[in-house]
């Protein structure tokens, strides 16, 4: 099932939004923010029925499940010009690891490669493909930005979010120490090795607090939930949001871990 949005037009890139499990389940506002950013940048956005990119299976050694899910996604998104996810981790899985999953499958490898080549993380898609250089919005707060590992190291996302954040009127970006160090989430790592994950998250929370910024942004909801959960447990009042919410000016919903309804 595919739902069309926006007028169909040859010149408008047709984007399939890969919404990601966590955004789907925990924080739909990130999905709507992504839709708005993509539409504002001139894309036609559709959201085909979908589940998961398969990363939990892939990183747990269950390649058969990972391949089955990958095939499903590649088929579902075949019709789109681009596949965009508001997550460096899921986008990295699809753009970097799907080809790896099928590299020994002569019938499917080329298909996986084509899919990977049109798959992007949201913010870098806006800047690198759509040449967006600024957003027309304001956010009168001091914020700090955490570089999530997959986006940073698999997809090279580092300058792009900062570029767009600096275009937000009134936003004051302050860098924390060790912004590029892991927050301790790591998907199933966070529950399989809870104790270690928690210690890493504590160090990250201290760096966030020491930055003096009352708002923390990042591009991956998994990391954000981990950091928000740790900050809340430490009694910190730092507000945690997905970067897309600020760029799309969808900040009327409470920050992560602060109440259910606006």
């Amino acid at each position: 099932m595919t739902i069309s949005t926006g007028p169909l037009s040859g010149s408008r890139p047709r984007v399939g939004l890969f919404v990601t499990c966590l955004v789907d389940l925990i924080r739909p506002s990130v999905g709507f923010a992504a839709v708005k950013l993509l539409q504002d940048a001139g894309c036609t956005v559709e959201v085909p029925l979908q589940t998961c990119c398969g990363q939990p299976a892939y990183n747990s050694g269950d390649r058969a499940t990972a391949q089955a899910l990958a095939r499903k996604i590649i088929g579902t998104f075949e019709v789109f010009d681009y596949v965009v996810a508001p997550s460096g981790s899921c986008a990295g899985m699809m753009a970097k690891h799907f080809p790896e999953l099928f590299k020994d499958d002569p019938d499917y490898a080329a298909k996986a490669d084509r899919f990977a080549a049109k798959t992007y993380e949201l913010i870098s898609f806006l800047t690198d493909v759509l040449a967006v250089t600024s957003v027309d919005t304001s956010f009168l707060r001091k914020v700090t930005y955490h570089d999530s590992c997959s986006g940073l190291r698999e997809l090279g996302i580092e300058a792009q979010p900062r570029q767009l954040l600096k275009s937000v009127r009134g936003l004051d970006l302050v860098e924390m120490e060790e912004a590029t160090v892991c927050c301790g989430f790591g998907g199933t790592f966070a529950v399989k090795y809870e104790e270690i994950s928690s210690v890493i998250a504590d160090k990250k929370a201290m760096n966030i607090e020491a930055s003096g910024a009352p708002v923390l942004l990042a591009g991956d909801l998994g990391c954000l939930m981990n950091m928000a959960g740790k900050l809340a447990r430490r009694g910190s009042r730092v507000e945690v949001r997905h970067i897309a919410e600020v760029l799309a000016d969808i900040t009327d919903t409470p920050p992560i871990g602060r109440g259910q309804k606006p």
Partner: protein
Amino acid sequence: MSITPTSAQFKTNAHHALGDADLQSALAHVPTGFVANRASAIANLPEFDALRDSARDIKNHTLAHLDLYLEAYEEKVKAAGGHVHFARTSDEANAIVLEICKAHDAHIVTKGKSMISEEMGLNDVLAAHAITPVETDLGEYIIQLRHETPSHIIAPAAHLTKAQVEGDFRRAHVDLDRARNLEEPETLLAEARTILRQNFLKADVGITGANFLIAETGTSIIVTNEGNGDLTQTLPKVHIVLASIEKLVPTLEDAAQILRVLARSATGQDMSVYTTLSTGPRRADDPDGPEHYHVIILDNGRSSMLAGPFKDMLRCIRCGACMNHCPVYQAVGGHAYGWVYPGPMGAVLTPALIGLDQSADLPNASSFCGKCEEVCPVRIPLPKLMRLWRDRAFERHLMPWTQRAALGFWAFFARHPRLYRGATSMAIGMLGLFGRGKDNLNALPFLKAWTKSRDFPVPQGGTFQAQWAKRNAGPQIKAPKS
């Protein structure tokens, strides 16, 4: 193998490590020291990344022709008057060392730092034959006094505080004046230097490792900062080099390429203080140097790694950058990994050398942050290799059954999008009930591992897909513009 691995108890080891205040205070130095120093060293060398490619290519080339380079190396060592011994296992290598020591009636053996010797468990073997091994690298010496194994491949005592070292010296150095002030690292160093100097001059045999073996010349190279390796190999009448098969490089030029990335990656120095190239025993007009020069080349499972995907791991030059930069290593230190090699390189190498069933936790205990691969001077894809071990662990059912069951349950729904949408909507509804009126969930029965140490944010309510479907029900409905 002589060291009993505790890698199978990784989680328990890690739990103790996290509660060990001394360890945690020692580990706090890792990011400020190694990590910061490496960053400044590579900032001063624009060619660093190109040199990493070069180092990787040299290692790959050597491994692909390893048999021929080993032959060439062996010929050159013999031509220089040295001896080359091959050992399939640790036991064979230990037996060769013992034989040489006995042939020279050795009582005291000084040792430069050698990870191979840790792998062999050589010290216990020597001691069992009334030969006293004296570790001379300061860190190794300290942990030898404590009957511990190294917690880091280039900084063996990285897990200890100054006060712990002082306690060890007071206990072990029986002639030490009780009143002597040993509060400062300087005085501790002076004390160790005095004790070890006596041993250097008394030793009958000196054993070192090797950072490289050079096929072109039959040369072995050691890299140190203290100079202990040089005193170990220069003063006694016998020098034994312990090296594993993958230490080969073709030429001096090749070694120069890799040396340029080694120290920078390890300690952030441009070069370590002492890089020593040794070729054969003392010559006719030499006033010093060993009369006998032996090289023991150990396989211990490495040759079979050449066949598969773990061949990449044989490029490793043991710089320690992966562990220095690893958030997991920084949290738990090296001993938690339970065998000789800790951190990301250990998580890949240990299962290959002692078996995955003994060490399945190691490649799993990573958040896959990718920092290790980013800093590796020979570009080993460490996360990819850890994932390959996870594949094998899954195939062999080495994962706890609860985890496997949870994964299977999740996979079923993930494969069926319509069921998934229904089930997730229901689950989110229930979570919403749990969390009604709250910001965070701090005790969820099915998310205990998460909520033990951090809150779980209450979902906004409703899944994105359900809301999207609702908002877009009917023909030509635009996405909500908020």
